[in-house]
């Protein structure tokens, strides 16, 4: 907006105010009606859908599904989209670059769009980008809300006793909440592990990674499984190293 347009807007708004109505009661009554409805809606939901009590925290077991509140699902889904197979850059894309770019865009919107036009049908770029953002957020939230399938049977061939023990630990510690094995489990945020063994990282790497994921994969959002015993860690590591090589999907 140039100075003339700013002056024109101020004149026009002054005229609107001059021909206007007092804030009280003409705006206040509308505000109060909608706010009362909203609060009534919250009370209604609270009575109709009571919030249940969850399971108490037990840092020793990681048998969990790490789900955020629904309004973080879109970020959660970004983690899945940019899941880097151990690489750092894609993870930072999802956790740092994309959210911060969105945040900065949100903050500077009025400094990007400075035209004098306010009617939305005369602002095609704003109309399109606004609708696109709403749909994208809704779509990502919907994708993120889909519960990962984790209770199915994992079908693997050639399982030896140690591999079986590893698989049992794998299932008991909720790994399928973030990883897929042989087509079972959530497709993210973690990488798929069906062919993990083919990467040839070695047992020691696997144990180290389980104990402290960030030490071998900087930027990983995986929780540490340090509460497992040495034997359990070894079983899990053997199982992971065998995936795709020894233990194959049928």
């Amino acid at each position, binding site marked *: 907006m140039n100075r*003339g347009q700013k002056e024109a807007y101020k004149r026009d708004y002054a005229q609107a105010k001059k021909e206007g109505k007092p804030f009280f009661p003409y705006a206040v009554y509308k*505000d109060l009606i909608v*706010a009362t409805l909203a609060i009534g809606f*919250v009370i209604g939901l609270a009575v109709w859908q009571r919030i249940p009590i969850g399971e*108490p925290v037990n840092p020793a077991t990681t048998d*969990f599904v790490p789900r955020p509140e629904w309004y973080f699902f879109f970020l959660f889904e970004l983690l899945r989209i940019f899941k880097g197979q151990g690489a750092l850059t894609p993870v*930072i894309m999802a*956790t*740092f670059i994309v959210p911060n770019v969105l945040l900065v865009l949100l903050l500077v919107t009025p400094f990007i769009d400075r035209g004098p036009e306010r009617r939305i049908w005369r602002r095609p770029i704003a109309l399109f980008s606004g609708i696109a953002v709403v749909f994208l957020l809704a779509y990502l939230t919907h994708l993120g809300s889909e519960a990962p399938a984790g209770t199915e049977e994992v079908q693997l061939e050639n399982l030896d006793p140690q591999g079986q023990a590893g698989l049992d630990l794998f299932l008991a510690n909720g790994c399928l909440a973030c990883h897929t094995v042989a087509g079972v489990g959530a497709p993210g945020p973690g990488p798929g592990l069906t062919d993990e063994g083919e990467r040839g990282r070695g047992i020691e790497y696997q144990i180290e990674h389980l104990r402290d*994921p960030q030490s071998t994969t900087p930027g990983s959002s995986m929780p540490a499984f340090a509460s497992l015993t040495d034997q359990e860690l070894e079983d899990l590591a053997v199982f992971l190293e065998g995936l795709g090589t020894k233990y194959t999907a049928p």
Partner: protein
Amino acid sequence: MSSSDASGDGRTGTTAVGTTDIAPKKPGVKAGEATVDYVDERSGATTGLKWYLFRNIPAETSWFQTLGFTAMMLFGLQAITGIVLAMYYKPDPASAFQSIEVITNDVTWGWLVRSMHRWGSSAMIVVVFLHMARVFFFGAYKYPRELTWVTGALLLVLTMFMGLTGYLLVWDQKAYWATVVATNITASAPLVGPFVADILRAGPEFGPNTLSRFYSLHMLVIPLGIATFIAIHLYFISFLGIAEPPWSKRRFRAKREEQEAERERAARTPYGRREVPAVGPPAPEREPARAEDGS
């Protein structure tokens, strides 16, 4: 109403109903008036409130323009239910979960307050987002309301942080592990990430102190931030006035009148000639175009 006009300050109330009322005042009314006058003389509170309530706003406001007030009321609801919950909640890993059980099962209406607080957080996110969408599609963030938008965007971010920090306080498995992942994500950010994560976790490891830290953030730091930004946001709104919907009837009327005046001028000057004043300043309708060089 009549009583406040009788105080002698006739600037705002010109109807002056009080002057015709000559009956002796009741002592209660008299004392009340005296108190209001005393406070107003020293603070301008009544004068300010009168200005705030009876200032003019554009005649045509949309129902969508009530969402900001609704968001503020939901924040108030969160504050009240949060205060009640804080009376029973124990921010200690050993007893946090148990205190949630007590609130839900034993405290009178405790389940309701807790459910309202949880649903209220979702409702607040929804309403704040809808409010933002309204401002966007109305073009209401444009001159002179750019800074109002910036404070509003920060309020949206703070509201989301409220959700993030409050989620952990129930101290159940789902919340615990989701927050472990969230702080790991924070730590993965370049440069400041590890430091911010250490501040959030109260150390390099996610542990018992993390709960106290999140409790403090959720109860003191972020609410204070939200209250501050609401105050600034409200100041901007009352200083600038609420935006008029861009499709108001008044604006269409003004446009039509302008066009009619233009046609009339054209009729007065046949053969498409424009009226040119013999001497003096340029025609007023050319004025906006003249200032185009000023950014």
